[in-house]
């Protein structure tokens, strides 16, 4: 079960199966230095969607830098962790779902995908499961899928197959909980999660994360299927590929405990939207090369670096901080400290900048508000000798002026309201309290 928890160690660190690394891979490996590689996995790929603009995260993930370790060395350790109770319950539930030859699971699959009753035999694909042999695992999964495709009318269950996805010149390894090849030839990704489906509904944030993760798996399966069919993968988000290339179903099965118990129940989740988003984000990962180009020579994140060198290296990567990062990225607290230090308005929330236009720091914005407020006649409407726009007439840029004008209006209204309230509180009678 790959519950989407930042900071949880990846199940394994598979090495790239290719013999010679690509130039980009070599550059990224250089950045990583002697630190162990964290493989680009489904979580990392799905996390691209959380903050796709962040170059810092893009480079560190692509280079396989362990961000948890990095955060600790930077003095802002990631606050993530998972309770042992939750872990043991999750593992127990996963065992339960896969018990009895997945009988319950296949029933849920039939029910949720509205498949007809069948008595088709169930085959469990033999997969290489040695974590030290990622290439063998990938190959055996591919062989198993090809064999299942050549064997219609049979259920084939692939338990934790390892899939490969080429991403901007580097390789990601993905491990879905289960892939089921149905008697009708379609492949369904099964995600097992430990949050409950209560009265048919579930935590929408968690379902969303599961859907994005499943989308990555479907994309990887589509690539595999296209390769098996000998065709190019379809890129149009609204067009389903035909034939074998279209075998991977864009509807995934989410299996969760039912209500307050431990019985498995399931829901079909349409992952076409997250597939479109992820595909585009993956295509954009090529920009990692451009991000690397601007790094000072000698930048690296290896263990041999001093804390100061590490901080400088991280600082050289442009981050796009938002408070959402605190719950999604190991470096969230570090980037927050940096953003607060710079006084950037993003620390107050993602939506804040939309209100402030061209102002990027708290100081700038407050100065603009104050400039107008303290200008003669700007404070109170009833004593105003001129409109606020007069007081800003000498501002050279009218884009800034418009932002400042709005801030000044807000500041004047706020000051007036607080003053009114203070006067009312001071009045002997008629107070609301």
């Amino acid at each position, binding site marked *: 079960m790959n519950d989407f928890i930042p900071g949880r160690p990846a199940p394994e660190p598979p090495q790239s199966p290719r013999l010679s690394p690509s130039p980009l891979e070599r550059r990224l490996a250089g950045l990583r230095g002697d630190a162990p590689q964290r493989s680009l996995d489904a979580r990392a790929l799905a996390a691209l969607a959380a903050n796709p603009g962040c170059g810092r995260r893009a480079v560190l993930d692509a280079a396989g830098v362990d961000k948890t370790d990095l955060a600790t060395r930077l003095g802002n350790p990631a606050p993530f962790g998972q309770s042992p109770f939750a872990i043991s319950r999750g*593992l127990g539930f996963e065992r339960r779902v896969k018990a009895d030859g997945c009988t319950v699971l296949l029933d849920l699959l039939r029910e949720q995908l509205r498949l007809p009753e069948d008595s088709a035999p169930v085959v469990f694909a033999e997969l290489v499961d040695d974590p030290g042999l990622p290439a063998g695992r990938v190959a055996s999964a591919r062989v198993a899928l090809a064999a299942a495709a050549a064997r219609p009318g049979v259920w084939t269950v692939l338990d934790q197959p390892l899939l490969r996805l080429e991403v901007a010149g580097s390789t990601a390894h993905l491990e879905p909980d289960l892939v089921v090849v149905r008697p009708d030839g379609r492949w369904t990704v099964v995600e097992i999660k430990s949050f409950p489906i*209560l009265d048919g509904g579930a935590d929408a944030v968690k379902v969303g994360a599961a859907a994005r993760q499943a989308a990555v798996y479907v994309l990887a399966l589509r690539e595999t299927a296209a390769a098996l069919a000998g065709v190019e993968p379809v890129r149009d988000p609204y067009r389903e590929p035909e034939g074998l290339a279209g075998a991977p179903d864009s509807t995934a099965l989410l299996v969760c405990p039912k*209500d307050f118990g*431990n019985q498995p129940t399931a829901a079909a989740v349409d992952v076409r939207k997250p597939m479109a988003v992820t595909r585009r984000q993956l295509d954009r990962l090529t920009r990692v090369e451009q991000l690397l180009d601007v790094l000072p020579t000698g930048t690296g994140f290896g263990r041999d670096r001093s804390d100061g060198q590490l901080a400088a290296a991280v600082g050289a990567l442009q981050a796009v901080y938002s*408070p959402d990062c605190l719950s999604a990225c190991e470096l969230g607290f570090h980037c927050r400290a940096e953003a607060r230090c710079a006084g950037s*308005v993003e620390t107050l929330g993602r939506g804040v900048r939309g209100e402030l236009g061209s102002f990027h720091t708290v100081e700038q914005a407050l100065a603009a508000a104050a400039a107008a407020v303290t200008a003669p006649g700007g404070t109170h409407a009833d004593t105003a000798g001129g409109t606020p726009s007069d007081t800003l007439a000498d501002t050279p840029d009218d884009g800034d002026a418009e932002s400042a004008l709005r801030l000044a209006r807000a500041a004047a209204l706020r000051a007036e309201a607080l003053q*009114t309230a203070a006067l009312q509180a001071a009045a002997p009678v008629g107070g609301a*309290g």
Partner: protein
Amino acid sequence: MSLLSTLARMEAVRDGRAVPLATVRHRHLADRPMVLVPLAAAGEAGAPLAVMLGQDRESPVLLTVPQPLDRDRRFALLADLAAELLPWLEGFGTEVDLLTREVKDPATGEKTEQVRELCTNAPQLLVPGPAAVEFLGLLGRSTRFRRSAETALDEGVDPGPYPVPARVPLLGRWLTHLRDRAQVPGSSLLLAMTDLLGRHWATGQSRLEDQHLGALLAWIDPPAGRTGAEAALLAETARDGHGQLLCPPAGPTTDPRFDSGLLAPAITRYDAARKLDDAVAAQAREAEIAALLEAVLRPTWDRLWQGLDLLRALPAAAHLPERWEGDRWSYTSHRDRIAAGEPPQPVRDDAVTAARKLAQREREQTRLDIQEALDDPLAMAEHRLAGEALAGRVVAVEAAYDETGRSPKPRPLVTVRTSDRPHGDPGRELYRAGGPTAQKAELVSADPAAGLVTVRLLNGMGRRKEPEPGSVPEPGEQVCFTLFELTARQSAPLPEPEDTPWTHGGPPVTRTATAQPDLPTAPADEEGA
């Protein structure tokens, strides 16, 4: 987030502490609220681990479960919770106001007087945050359909293998009601402290970070010598020598490192003692667990009371009694439903109930927005900035009349000096806020360059040609007009559930007390893995 609250947050950054976002307190606070901090067992859905509750800040009641997977102990906790909460909840049902109203008999058209009871007061429950509200809802969902051995006997049905203590299902119904009421904007039966504080203060951090009660309070009331940001960071991250947070999460989830470092080993020791049938040791281990849980609950408990102190220092908004009356009605009607022996609230609303609830919430949201604006100049400032209201001093009043009728009616023109820019064309209807009576006006002209807006008063000036004294503002007087109506409109009538039309699937399938088809077959919970 609005520009005004963004500005307030920036001021908080500058000042190093939170700044006011309201000039009055916008929620009713009971004299003696029930304060409650629940903790949930990690990984289990709706499984309680501990509850700290009470009305006296010095002596909270602590309820704990030594082994969250032990179903009997879980229900024992819920039974204890019911014993603490139900007498208090039910106690408000005895003292009532009698209200009479005239009702028309639909058949005969005859008017008769109807007397209704409205409970004089209602309970108020305070929890740390929205997650605790949801957790109480989960507890309500998991318990209200249960049968106790007694009720099963009364109904002549098999209680099943897991009967629950007698009063637990009733507690479930009350929790469900409180949580449902909490969805109604402006309601105050069940309140979350982070919501309350967040409504009244702007911190120098994001709304997301404000969800952390410790960090939020650190900004509002920072300890001497520290800025809000510093104190908040300590609240979020500072740990003791054993790696435990100095400010534990306000729940219901616990810190994973508390679970792994302290709780899990303690539970293992407890289980071991039980396995050995060593009652004395088991009791001692249980006391250890209770002490661990008390230690992580107590800081949150104290913070809730600290928050209450801060809120009580604010003057109450003028409309609070009116809105609290809505809460009293809500409490009274639930009391009546239970007294009438009605079944527990269903798992899902039927089409009509869902539509009614939505209509009520929309109406109450509108009413809340209006009342907050009328009660608080800072709330009105939001509307002024958005071009939905204008306020300023009257600079000129010109008598004018509507001569179209038999007798001329006063329609004076009032010119206001204001920098507000109402988003409306001439002729747009306006409503006077804070006037002596409800009064309509229309926008006549606006001159932003000169900072002048002229409006024409349309009513509320009496029946004579000359306006009643005091009904027309004088020059120099401060006035405020809104572009939005100052009363929430009534919601349109909806059919009875049994008249649900074909477009919505027809009448819902009737449920009987003994067979509830859409319920999970109780008991759904088994021992965890």
